[in-house]
């Protein structure tokens, strides 16, 4: 059964953030003696966004949240819930949500929590935010997906693990709604495709197992179930965003569901910024909203290892047009870039530390 809020809920604002710095696949390949073609042509990833030395998933979440609140054009004190989904929280114990809530001015009368489910933590936060708004328990909810992810040095995932995030202000549908959440569906199983044990610095993965039994099974099942229940075919959607661990998986998922390239292109950011983990589908959606028009239908399907997918059917409303210019676009952030070398990256990520 798909999830439909009893009262209509939509986005009042959206916003994203991508750090300025980029690490190219050539640069990583150079250090580890790998073939950059394998990533560029094989996985459609050119470079990934990496965080500067003063950034982390909390600072990414703050800016994404701020941008979404700017677009929502509301009093932050009316936000009743602030959720942050991430797998790279700066603290193991101390919520990122409280920092975001404080930074945007939503404290102290606010519910706050951090969400975790690998790369789908952000979309989960959107689901829960939707429920709180629909039930009338809060007027507005803010849900953010943000990560400064880190691949194990020398591992394949190092080529794609990137930094970025996007946030959404949710409220009851009305004249200023940007887009309605028509319905959502979560498909979850216990699948060990990608994991990190407590206390371990880097994740491990099941290589090609991460494909068919993991990503494709969950993304495909979530999308199909949602579309079937709502009676939609791929043609009914103007745009589709799939989780982007690399440039190949989302394209294959799109094809198998009948989506053409032009529909997924606006939200396909991985080639230029890598996999922003919990930020991946939220950023893809943000980039799509930056150019969407009232009446557009958008399918969003996230994926989190472990494993699960959240699928959403979103209908763009009239309220979107005036809000676009209230915050920087995702393109503004994608185009703001400076390439760094591998040694700078490992210093910034504290993988080498000067002794005190």
């Amino acid at each position: 059964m798909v999830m439909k809020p009893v009262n209509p809920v939509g986005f009042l604002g959206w916003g994203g953030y991508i750090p300025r710095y980029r690490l190219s696949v050539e640069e990583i390949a150079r250090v580890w003696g790998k073939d950059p073609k394998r990533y560029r042509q094989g996985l459609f990833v050119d470079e990934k966004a990496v965080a500067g030395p003063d950034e982390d998933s909390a600072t990414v979440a703050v800016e994404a949240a701020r941008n979404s609140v700017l677009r929502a054009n509301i009093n932050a004190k009316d936000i009743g819930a602030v959720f942050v989904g991430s797998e790279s929280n700066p603290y193991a114990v101390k919520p990122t949500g409280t920092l975001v809530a404080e930074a945007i001015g939503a404290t102290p009368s606010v519910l706050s929590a951090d969400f975790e489910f690998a790369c789908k933590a952000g979309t989960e936060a959107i689901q829960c935010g939707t429920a709180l708004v629909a039930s009338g328990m809060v007027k507005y909810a803010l849900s953010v997906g943000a990560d400064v992810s880190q691949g194990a040095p020398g591992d394949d995932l190092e080529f794609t693990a990137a930094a970025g995030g996007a946030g959404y202000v949710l409220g009851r549908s009305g004249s200023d709604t940007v887009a309605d959440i028509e319905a959502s569906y979560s498909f979850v199983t216990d699948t060990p495709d990608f994991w990190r044990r407590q206390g371990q610095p880097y994740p491990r993965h099941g290589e090609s197992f991460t494909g068919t039994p993991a990503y494709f099974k969950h993304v495909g099942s979530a999308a199909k179930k949602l579309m079937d229940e709502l009676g939609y075919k791929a043609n009914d959607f103007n745009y589709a965003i799939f989780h982007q661990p690399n440039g190949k998986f989302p394209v294959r998922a799109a094809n198998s569901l009948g989506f053409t390239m032009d529909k997924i292109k606006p939200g396909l950011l991985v080639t230029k910024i890598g996999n922003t983990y919990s930020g991946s589908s939220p950023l893809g959606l943000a980039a799509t909203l930056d150019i969407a028009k009232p009446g557009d239908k958008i399918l969003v399907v996230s994926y989190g290892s472990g494993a699960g997918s959240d699928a959403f059917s979103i209908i763009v409303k009239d309220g979107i047009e005036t809000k676009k210019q209230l915050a920087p676009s995702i393109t503004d952030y994608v185009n703001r870039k400076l390439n760094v070398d591998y040694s700078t990256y490992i210093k910034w990520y504290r993988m080498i530390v000067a002794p005190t």
Partner: protein
Amino acid sequence: MSSARIWREIPQRYRLEGTKCAKCGTATFPPRSTCPKCGADEMKLYMLPRAGKIVTYSLIHSAPEGFETNVPYPVALIELDDGTRITSQLTDCENSEITVGMPVEMAVRRIREESPSGIIVYGYKFRPKVRKS
């Protein structure tokens, strides 16, 4: 740095909360309880603007403890859009591209941490505007 010291100035560091004199209109940052201009005790909460331009700057090469890793880093005296001034680090720009008069905007970033197990201090830094328009 203790929890209390880090926590006390959060509204200033995260939201640029200052004060403004209800009598003469002078804005101050950090907040004051007595107006430095007219001496009245009528300072009210005031949210500083988050954009401004660089008045002067320097690149710190010889850093104090806790800031050594990323030298040389830029610091600047910034005049915000309402005329109030603030000192801050700059970020997201190459040292060579900094100029007096450059427009900048606020972002919340990690400022310092006392140790890998200590509290992380977050606060404002200023950077070139993301949107050129």
